[in-house]
C-alpha cells in the first residue's frame, strides 16, 4: 500500500502524462483569415460514438468542431482549450484545410506553425478550401465515414491514384517545393457543393441523397507561399501528366467520326529533359504510356490497325494539348514554375542554372516547352469488336 | 528551497553510499578528492538553482575559434 502511494506521488507529478481519456483527438484542422486575425477550427473525435463497442447509437455527433479566433494561431488554440473539455491533440491530424483567403495571404506562418509544433506529423494532406472558408468544410458531415476528416483524407488518396486532376500534398512535399528555387507548389482545392447551412446538420447524412457534399476541385497555384490562382480541370490533368503524377486515369477520346471512346490509362511515365541553345533553356517533355479501351460509344471498328493508329493519334494530341494548356496558363497567367522545370535544369545543367537561378520567374515565362506524347493502345477488354459498330 | 534540500539529501545519500567504500581505501587523496569534487558539484548546482551566472566553457571555445572560423576557414573555403 505504501508502495502504491509512493508510486502515485511519483507519477502524479509527471510532466508529459496525458491520459487517453483526456485527449481530444483532432483529425482535421482548418485555418482561416478573419480580418487581421487567424481563425482556427478543429474537428475533434468523440470516440465513444465511433467505437464499435458502445454501438455508436448515441445521440451525440461523432465529431465536434471547435472554432476560435486569435492574433496568432497558438492564441486561437489556447482559446479553444477553454471551450473544449479535452486537450487538443494534434498527432492524428489527417488533413489541414486552409481557407482561400488565408492561402492568398499568409501561408508561410501557417507552415511555420505546423512544422515547428512537435505534435504534428508530416503525413497529413494540405488542402485549400476553394470559394469558402476552412471551417465550413470541416463542418460538413459525411455519409459513408463517421469521421469526415477520414473521408476527406481517403478520397484524396484514392482520387490521386485513380483520377488525374488532384494531387495529394503532404507537408514535406510542400516544404520541399517552397525551399527549391526551381519549383513552385500547388495544392488541391476542395469545394462545398450545395447548401452550406444544411451541410453541418445530421439530416444531411440521413437523407439518401446528400444535399451538400464535398468535392475535390482542381489545383491551386502558388507563387512562393501565396495562392495566385486556380488551374482548370483540364489544366490540372495536364499538370499531373507533366510532373509524372499519373498512376491510373480515365480519359475520353473523341472518335474521328464523332462519338466518344473511353480509355483507361494504365502505365504512364513522363521524362523531363532540358537542353540549351546558347543560353536559352529548352524543356523537352516526353510522355510515354499504355492504355486500354474501356468503352466504345461510336461506330469505329477497333479491330482495324488503321483505326487504332488514328485513335492513338487523337489521344496523343489530346494529352499534348492538356499539357500545353497547363504550361500556357502557368507561364502566361501565373508566371509560376509549378512544374519544377527549374529544378530539372538545375539537376541536368548545374553550371548553366546558376545565372538563371535568381531571376527564374522571368526566364520561366519565356521558356520553350516541347511536349511529345507516345501513348499506345494495347488491349480492348473482353470483347473484340464493338457491339455498337455491329449494330450500325 | 525544496530543491536545495532535495539536493542535500541526495548528496547525503551519496556520501553514505561511498563512505563504506572509501573506508577501505587507506589513501587520503581519495577521500579529499571525493569531498572536494562533491563540494564543488553541490556549490555549482545550488548556484545554478539560484540563477547565479556561471562560467560557460563554450564561451571560451567561441572566443578562441570565432576569429579563426571567420578569418581563416571562411576565406579558405
Amino acid at each position, binding site marked *: 500500500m505504501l508502495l502504491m502511494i509512493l508510486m502515485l506521488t511519483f507519477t502524479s507529478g509527471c510532466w508529459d502524462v496525458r491520459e487517453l481519456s483526456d485527449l481530444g483527438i483532432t483529425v482535421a484542422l482548418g485555418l482561416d483569415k478573419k480580418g487581421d486575425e487567424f481563425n482556427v477550427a478543429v474537428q475533434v473525435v468523440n470516440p465513444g460514438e465511433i467505437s464499435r463497442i458502445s454501438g455508436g447509437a448515441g445521440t451525440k455527433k461523432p465529431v465536434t468542431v471547435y472554432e476560435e479566433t486569435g492574433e496568432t494561431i497558438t492564441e486561437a488554440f489556447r482559446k479553444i482549450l477553454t471551450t473544449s473539455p479535452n486537450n487538443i491533440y494534434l498527432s492524428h491530424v489527417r488533413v489541414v484545410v486552409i481557407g482561400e483567403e488565408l492561402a492568398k495571404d499568409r501561408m508561410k506562418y501557417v507552415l511555420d506553425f505546423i512544422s515547428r509544433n512537435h505534435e504534428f506529423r508530416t503525413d497529413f494532406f494540405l488542402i485549400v478550401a476553394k470559394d469558402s472558408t476552412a471551417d465550413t468544410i470541416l463542418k460538413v458531415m459525411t455519409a459513408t465515414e463517421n469521421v469526415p476528416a477520414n473521408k476527406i483524407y481517403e478520397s484524396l488518396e484514392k482520387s490521386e491514384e485513380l483520377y488525374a486532376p488532384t494531387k495529394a500534398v503532404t507537408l514535406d512535399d510542400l516544404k520541399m517545393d517552397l*525551399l527549391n528555387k526551381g519549383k513552385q507548389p500547388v495544392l488541391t482545392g476542395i469545394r462545398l457543393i450545395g447548401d452550406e447551412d444544411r451541410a453541418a446538420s445530421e439530416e444531411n447524412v440521413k437523407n439518401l441523397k446528400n444535399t451538400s457534399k464535398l468535392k475535390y476541385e482542381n489545383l491551386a497555384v502558388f507563387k512562393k507561399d501565396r495562392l495566385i490562382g486556380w488551374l482548370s480541370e483540364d489544366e490540372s490533368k495536364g499538370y499531373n501528366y507533366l510532373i509524372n503524377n499519373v498512376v491510373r486515369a480515365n480519359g475520353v477520346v473523341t472518335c474521328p467520326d464523332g462519338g466518344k471512346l473511353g480509355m483507361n490509362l494504365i502505365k504512364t511515365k513522363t521524362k523531363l529533359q532540358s537542353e540549351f541553345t546558347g543560353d536559352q533553356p529548352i524543356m523537352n517533355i516526353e510522355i510515354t504510356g499504355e492504355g486500354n479501351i474501356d468503352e466504345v460509344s461510336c461506330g469505329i471498328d477497333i479491330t482495324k490497325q488503321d483505326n487504332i493508329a488514328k485513335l492513338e493519334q487523337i489521344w496523343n494530341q489530346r494529352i499534348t494539348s492538356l499539357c500545353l494548356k497547363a504550361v500556357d496558363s502557368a507561364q502566361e497567367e501565373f508566371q509560376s514554375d509549378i512544374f519544377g522545370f527549374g529544378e530539372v535544369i538545375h539537376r541536368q545543367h548545374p553550371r548553366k542554372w546558376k545565372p538563371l537561378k535568381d531571376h527564374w520567374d522571368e526566364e520561366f515565362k519565356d521558356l520553350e516547352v516541347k511536349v511529345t506524347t507516345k501513348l499506345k493502345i494495347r488491349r480492348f477488354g473482353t470483347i473484340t469488336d464493338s457491339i455498337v459498330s455491329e449494330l450500325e | 528551497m525544496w530543491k536545495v534540500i532535495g539536493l542535500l539529501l541526495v548528496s547525503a545519500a551519496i556520501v553514505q553510499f561511498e563512505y563504506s567504500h572509501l573506508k577501505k581505501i587507506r589513501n587520503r587523496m581519495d577521500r579529499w578528492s571525493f569531498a572536494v569534487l562533491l563540494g564543488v*558539484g553541490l556549490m555549482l548546482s545550488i548556484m545554478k538553482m539560484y540563477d547565479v551566472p556561471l*562560467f*560557460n566553457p563554450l564561451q571560451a571555445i567561441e572566443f*578562441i575559434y*570565432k576569429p579563426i572560423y571567420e578569418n581563416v*576557414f571562411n576565406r579558405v573555403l
Partner: protein
Amino acid sequence: MLEKGRISVAQFTILIFLVTTGDSILVLPSSVAGEAKNDAWLSGIFALGIGLLLVLLFYQVSKLFPDLTFVEYSDRIFGSFLGKVLAGFFLLYPFLSVALLLRELGDFLTTQILPHTPIEAITILFMVFVIYGTRLGLETWVRAGQVFLPFFLLLVVLFFAFLAPQFHLDNIKPILGEGVKPMLRGSLTFIAFPFMETLIVLIMIFPYVKIKKQIELRNAMLIAQTAGGTLLILMMLTALLVFGGELVAHQQYPSYSLAKKINIGKFLERIEAIIAILWLITIFIKATFYFYSSTLGLAQLLRLQDYRPLTFPLGIIAIVLSIEVSPSITYYNEVISKYWPLFDFTMSLIFIPLILVFGLFYLKNN
C-alpha cells in the same frame, strides 16, 4: 592498476563503431547538409578518407606506451608539472563532451518526445545510468555495448529497408553542382564529429585492449571507423534521397523526421519512437565512454586507488555543466556546428602530434 578489466579486440572494434556513430547519427545530417546541401554524402566519403588517415596517426600514438594511458605517461614525456597540466587539459575534453552529449539528448527529447518534462529530469536519469555503467567498469559497459549491437544493427537495417520505397534519386542531383567548396565545408563537421571525437579519447583506452600484436589495434580502428563512417554516409544519403538537401538542412533532427516518414502498407507507421532507440543506444555508449575516460583519467592524474568515488561528484558537475553550456538552442547549434569542430581539429591535429613528437623524443633518449 585502476582498471583490471580487459576488452577483446572485437569488443574494441564494436566500441569504436558505436561511438563513431554516436550522436552523429542524429544531428550530423543537418549540419553537414547545411553547408553541402545535396552533396553532403560526398562530404561523408571525403571525411571517411580523412578519418582513416587519422587512424594511422593515432596508431602511432598507441605504440608509444602500449601499457599506459595518456594520463599515466604524460608526466614522463612532458615532465611532471607540464605533464600534469596537459593531462588535466586533455581530460577537460571528454568531460565537456559528456556535458554536451547530455545537453544534446535533453534537447532532442524535450523538443520531440517529452516536451513538458524538465530537461534536468531527463539528463539526471540518463546520467545516473551512465554513472552506473562507469562504476561497473570498462569490461562490463563495453560488453553491454556488445549486447546492444545486434539490436542496433537490426534497427538500422529495418530503418533503411522501410525507407527504401521513398527514395527519389533526383534529390541528390546535380552532383557537385556548386563545385567542390560546399562539399569541403560540409566535411568539416563530418570529419570532426564522428571520427576525431572518437579517436581523441581512445588514448585513454588503448592499454586495456587484449592484443597479441600492436597492429591489431590499427586494424580494429580501421574496420570500425569504416563501418561507422559507412553507416553515417548511408544515413546521410537516405536523408538526402528522401528529403533533398534543402529540407535536410532545415531540420533539427533529420533522421528522426525520416523515421516519421516510414509507412509500409498503412500498418508499419508511426514507429519513430522505436527508431529513436537506435540513437539512444549509441549516445549512451558514447556518453559512458567519455565519462568513463574522464573519471578514470582524473583518478590516474590524482594517483587515487579507485576512480569510483569520483563518479557521483563528477556526474553532478556534468549535469550542471550540461545546463550551463547553452543559453539557447541557437547558440548551441552555432557553437557546435562552427567552432567545436575546430576544437576537435586542434586536439587531433596539434595536441596529438605534440604527444607523438615528445613521446618519440622521450623513447629515443631513454
